[in-house]
């Protein structure tokens, strides 16, 4: 399945930089950081909203990228996909640690039954559904997202963008855990099949 065009366009020159960084070229690595750190920081910050922690995570991500760059295989993955995956994994792992020592968000202070965490931070932070539509330039994916039910879309968006677990998504959507699990699963399978069809259509 070819990823959406713009994603691969953006990825193209990153492949070069990553390859050179893999050979120990610091200047290439610095250029790679310049071109990608704002994106990865946004990804991390969306999952872990503690800025200090997010900065630490970003640091870890790039130190890892530097060490692993020579193992990057452009035939297996696009660089931006690879980098974003590393950042997401780090951010998700940091949530696990944070959960053992619960962190209070500013928004929680005036939380009540009616308050949605997204309302509290709505000014600067778009909701997950808005993010999905902003990803519209990732055309095939966006098109396939439209094919999902609203509930499926929302459950995937909460899990993917915000790093929520099934249980947290269920809590947020006030739905039984089993229901949410099945929404997410069906949504992902529908996406997969839709993207595969889209790829066949292009071919």
């Amino acid at each position, binding site marked *: 399945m070819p990823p959406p065009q713009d994603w691969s366009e953006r990825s193209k020159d990153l492949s070069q930089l990553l390859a050179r960084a893999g050979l120990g070229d610091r200047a290439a690595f610095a250029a790679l950081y310049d071109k990608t750190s704002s994106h990865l920081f946004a990804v991390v910050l969306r999952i872990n909203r503690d800025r200090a922690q997010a900065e630490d995570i970003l640091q870890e991500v790039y130190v890892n990228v530097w060490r692993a760059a020579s193992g990057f295989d452009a035939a297996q993955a696009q660089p931006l996909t690879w980098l974003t995956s590393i950042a997401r994994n780090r951010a998700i792992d940091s949530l696990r640690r944070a959960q053992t020592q619960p962190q209070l968000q500013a928004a929680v202070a005036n939380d009540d039954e009616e308050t949605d965490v997204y309302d509290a931070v709505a000014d600067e932070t778009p909701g997950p559904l808005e993010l999905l539509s902003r990803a519209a330039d990732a055309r095939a994916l966006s098109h396939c997202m439209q094919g999902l039910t609203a509930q499926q879309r929302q459950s995937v968006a909460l*899990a993917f963008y915000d790093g929520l677990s099934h249980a947290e998504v269920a809590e947020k959507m006030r739905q039984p855990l089993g229901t949410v699990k099945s929404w997410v699963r069906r949504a992902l399978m529908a996406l997969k099949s839709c993207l595969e069809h889209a790829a066949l259509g292009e071919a």
Partner: protein
Amino acid sequence: MDYSRQALADHLAADYVTGTLRGPARRRFEKLLPAHPSLRTAVDQWQARLMPLTLGLQPQKPPAVVWTRIEQRIGGAPSSKPAAAQRSPWWSQLFVWRGLSVALTVAAVSLSVLLANPGPAQPPVVVVLSATSAPAGGVVPATFVASISSDGRAMVTRPLVNVSLEANRALELWALPASGAPPRSLGLISEKGTTVLKKGEVLKGASGLAVSLEPPGGSPTGAPTGPVLYVGKLNT
């Protein structure tokens, strides 16, 4: 792989990439990945499918201090010299040199056995060549010790543990120039016992040594053709 297992792998990979696979299950899954190519492929595919979703996020510029800390962690200020680009990854990788101080202790002990004759006034240079992770059928991970006379004209190599090698294979020793130029052959070495190499200035300009797996008689091309099995840094 039958269909149900493949479907399960795909479900797990989807959960992993979406981020809903959590806790111990996530960690177990990560441990399985390196050894299960089909799982790895499923993860790659899901990443390719879903990561473009992050394009919807508004970029957030990290504070400058993050880059400063990264630079400190990866060692040294950024250099703009593209010369480094000439190096092959496996011998410029810093992690290869990690843990050598421990191995050096082992080497120091074995050296007393290794060097039958009392050394010259200048102590010899000792290089420990640690096993890389390069796959090589039938080769037992081991460590080589190379001691080089202080004038750099002779070298003795010896495996700390006997290496079992297939009959049609040989080990070739290479000097790795600090300049990043291609490795220079120093000759074949024995996988069982001591090899004495007499070369003019084997150390000259070299920053490390490596042993590669080659056909009998050594590399036909003058450059390492097989996997690099052992590598060590010159402690100059």
